[in-house]
C-alpha cells in the first residue's frame, strides 16, 4: 500500500514570516502616506486654474494698473457674496480702451446682446459652507489672505486649500491675519517693521481688540 505523498513547505517559505513582519510595518507607512496624500496641496485643489471664457488678467489690471479689488467686486463689503463685475463695469473703460481687441470679443458681445459671461468659479466652497465676504473684509482680513497674490495672476488660480482645518487656523487665532481695514485690498501691504515678528504680533493684537474680532469656531458660524 502506497502511503499518501508527504507534502512539505520548501525552506524559503520560512522567509514568509519576515515578509509578514515587513507587511505589518507597511500599515503605519500606508496610513502615513494616506494622511500625507490627504493633506497634499493637489488633493486640496490648490492650484486649480480653470480656463476662463475671457482672457482677463488680474496681473495687468491689479498688478500693473493698480485697480482696487472693489472696483469690480463691488459687493464685497456689503454682502456675503463678492459679486463678479457686470459687463457694463468692464465697458466703463473698454468702451474706449481696446474696444475692438479680439480678447474683448465676448465682452463686447455680452454688452451688446445682454447675455452674461459664463465665468468659471475658481474658489469653490462646499455647498454647506456659508462664507460671508463682508464679515471678513470689514474686520481687516485682507483679500490676499485667502486668494493669494492675485495681482500676479495672469489667470486666477486657487492659492489656498480652503479646507476646514485651514479656515480654523485663522478662526482660532486671527491675529496674524489682520491688517488695518483700509489696507484690506492692498496686495502689497506689509506691516510696519515687517521683519519684526513682535511688532506684527502687537499689531494683530491691537487690531483684534479694535475691531472686536471674534472669529468664532462654533459650527453655526459657517454651517447652517
Amino acid at each position: 500500500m502506497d502511503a499518501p505523498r508527504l507534502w512539505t513547505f520548501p525552506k524559503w517559505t520560512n522567509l514568509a514570516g519576515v515578509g509578514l513582519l515587513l507587511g505589518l510595518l507597511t500599515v503605519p507607512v500606508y496610513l502615513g502616506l494616506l494622511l500625507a496624500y490627504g493633506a497634499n496641496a493637489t488633493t486640496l485643489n490648490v492650484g486649480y486654474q480653470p480656463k476662463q471664457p475671457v482672457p482677463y488678467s488680474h496681473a495687468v489690471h491689479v498688478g500693473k494698473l493698480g485697480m482696487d479689488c472693489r472696483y469690480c467686486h463691488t459687493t464685497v463689503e456689503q454682502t456675503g457674496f463678492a459679486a463678479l463685475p457686470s459687463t457694463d463695469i468692464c465697458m466703463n473703460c473698454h468702451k474706449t480702451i481696446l474696444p475692438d481687441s479680439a480678447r474683448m470679443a465676448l465682452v463686447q458681445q455680452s454688452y451688446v446682446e445682454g447675455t452674461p459671461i459664463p465665468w468659471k468659479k475658481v474658489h469653490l466652497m462646499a455647498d454647506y459652507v456659508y462664507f460671508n465676504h463682508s464679515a471678513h473684509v470689514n474686520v481687516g482680513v485682507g483679500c490676499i489672505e485667502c486668494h493669494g497674490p492675485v495681482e500676479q495672476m495672469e489667470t486666477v488660480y486657487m492659492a489656498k486649500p480652503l479646507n476646514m482645518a485651514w479656515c480654523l487656523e485663522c478662526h482660532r487665532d486671527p491675529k496674524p491675519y489682520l491688517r488695518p481695514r483700509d489696507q484690506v485690498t492692498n496686495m502689497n501691504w506689509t506691516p510696519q517693521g515687517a521683519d519684526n515678528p513682535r511688532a506684527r504680533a502687537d499689531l494683530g493684537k491691537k487690531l483684534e481688540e479694535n475691531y472686536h474680532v471674534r472669529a468664532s469656531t462654533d459650527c453655526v458660524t459657517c454651517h447652517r
Partner: protein
Amino acid sequence: MATVALQEIDNTVEDPRQRATLILGEPGTSLHEVSEAICGVAEARHPPKPWYAALGIAMLALGLLGLMIVYLFFTGIGVWNLNRPVAWAFDITNFVFWVGIGHAGTLISAILFLFRQKWRTSINRFAEAMTIFAVMCAGLFPAIHLGRPWFFYWMIPYPNQMGMWPGFLSPLLWDMFAVGTYFTVSLLFWYMGMVPDLATFRDRATGRFRYYIYGVLSLGWRGSQRHWHVYEKAYLLLAALATPLVLSVHSVVSFDFAVAQLPGWHSIVFPPYFVAGAIFSGFAMVVTLAIPAREMFGLKNFITLRHLDNMAKVILVTSLMVAYAYATEFFMAWYSASQWEQFHFLNRLFGPMWWAGWTMLICNAVVPQVLWFKKARQNVWILFTVCILVNVGMWFERFVIIVIGLHRDFLPSSWGSYYPSYVEVVTFIGSFGLFLTLFLLFCRYLPIVAMAEVKGILPHGHGSNEPGQGHDAAVPQTDEIGTSDKGAVGSVADSAPVASRDVDSFAVARPTPPAPKLWGLLAEYDSSDALLKAAEKVRDAGYKRWDCFSPFPVHGLDRAMGIRATILPWMVLAAGLVGAAVAVILQWYTNSPQTVSAQAGALSGYPMIFSGKPFWSLPANIPIVFELTVLFAALMTFFGLWALIRLPRLHFPAFASRRFRRVTDDRFFLLVQANDEKYHSKPTRNLLAGTNCVVVEDVFDE
C-alpha cells in the same frame, strides 16, 4: 472513526470519588481517536446531508440580506419603519441581540478557562466561532442603521481636513471601541487557539491543497514545547484580558441606553443586567447550536450531556439574574416615585405593546425555571426548546427596552408607535443567514473542537499514562511507517537502530547519493510521561539546542526542560499602558482648549461644548481608555507570541519525517539538534536510546 454513542450516556453524576469523565467513549479512547473524530468532520468526503440543506437555506437568507442592504443603501433608511419617536427599533435590537449572543464564546474561552473549568474544552471552539460570527452580525447593524452609512469612518479619530474629532462623550463611540476591541480580541483568541488544531489538520492532510492551506494557516506549528510554553502564557494572558472585556462589552452596550435619559433606559442596573442577559442568551445560543451540531457531526462523545447540563445550569443562573434585574427595574420605578419611570413599566406590560413585554418576561424569567429539574436539563428536546424560547425572549427584551422605551417618553404629544417593515424583518432573518453560513462553513472546514485542549484533559494527557493505551499499540504503526517511506528526505537512520525495549528497528536503510546534512536526532515517545523523563535526562546532560514536541502542552515539561519564564507578560503590560496613555492623550488633546494646539492644523484639537459638560472629563474617558488598554495588550499578546516563538516558519526539517507528522496527533518527540555543542553522534544517540522512546530517527536538513 470516533465512537458514536448511540444512546446518551449520563456523565452528569458527580461521584465524589472519581471525576466524571468529560469526554465519552470506549475505554480505549485515545489521543488519536480524538483527532480522528474531530478531523473526520472536515476530512469526510461529503458532509452530512442536513449540512447541505442547512447551508442552502442559510445562503438563501444571506442573499436576501445582501439584497436588502443594497436596497437600503440606495434608497434611504426610510425603508425601515423607524420614525419619530422610535428612531431605533429592529436595527439596534438586532445589534444588542447579536452582541449578547457573542458573549458566550469568549466567556467560555476566557472566564471558564481562568476558573479552570475543564469542561469548556469541548465547546469553547465553536462557541468562540459563534462569538466571532455573532459579533460580525452585530457589527453589521450599527453600520447599516446610519442615515449615511458611507460616513461610518468618521467615528474613528484620525486627523482630517475638517479638523474634526469624534465625540468622545458618546456611548456609541465607546461602543464602537468596545465592540471593535471585543471582535479583535475574540478573533485573535479564536485563531490562536486554533493554530495547534490547524497543524493537526495539516499533518493529516493527504492532498496538496489541504496541506498548503492548513499549513499556512497553522503557521508552521509543530508542538514544540518551547512554543507551548509561550503559547500557554499568551493564552492565559489573552484569557485574562478577554475576561474583563466580556464584562465590559455588554456594559458598554448597555451605556447606549443607560447614559440616555429615557425612562426605561436611564437605569444604573443596566451594565450587570445586560452582561447577565448576554451570557444568558449566549449560552442559550450555544446550546441551540450544539444540540444539532453534535447530532449532525457525531460529536456526542465530546459534547456530552454533562456539558449540556452545565450550560443549562449557567442558563438557569443567568435567567435568575435577569429576572432579578427585571424585578429591580420594576421596584425602582415604584420606589423612585418618578412618574415617567412608573409609566414606562406599566406601559411595558399593559400598553399597546403588552405582548412584547410579556413575551420577554415569560421566556426569560419563567420558562428557564424548568431547568431546575434534572430531567429537563438532560432531555435534549426540552433543553433545545427552552433555549430557543430564551433566544426569542432575549430578542424581545431588547425590543422591549428599545421600542417600548422610545415609543412613549416624556411628552405625550410625541408618543408614537412602531411596526417593522418587510425590509427590517428580512434583514433580521438575513443576519441569521450570515451567521449560519459562516458557522456551517466553519463546521465543515475548521476544527470544531479544540483538539489540543481536549487531549490535554484526557486522562493520559496529564502524563499519568494510566489507561491501557500504551507502548504496545505503537508497534504496528512503526512498521507501517518504516516500510512506506518514499520521497521524504532524511528519514532513515544512518546507523543501526538503538537497542531499546519494544523498539523496532528501521527496516530499510536507504542511503541517498548527495548525503544530506544531519540536522538532528529525533526520538519518539508514546506517552507524555516518557517524554518528560527523557527531557530531564537530556537537560541534565547539558544540551542546549534541543526541544520536545507534543500534541498538547505537557505540564511540567518546561521545567523538565529548564525553559526560562517568558517575558511576554511584561511586553503585554507595557503595551497595555501604552494603550491607556494613547487613549487618555487622544481624548484630552482633541478636546483641549486651543492654547495647546492652536496652529496644529488638522492635528489640532477642537474643544466643543457637549451638553454643558467640561471640555475634558476623565470619567467619560474611562470606557475608551479601558478598551484601548485591552486592545493594545491583546495585540501585543498575539503578535508578541509569534515574535517570541518566531513563527510563522512553515518549513521545519522534522516535517520531512512521517513519524513526526503525528506530533500534532498523539505522539511525543524529543529532538536534539546536531549543531548543539554537546552533540556527538554516538553518545547522543545512546542518550536518547536510553530513554523510554519508541524510535530514534535522524533528521536531515535539505
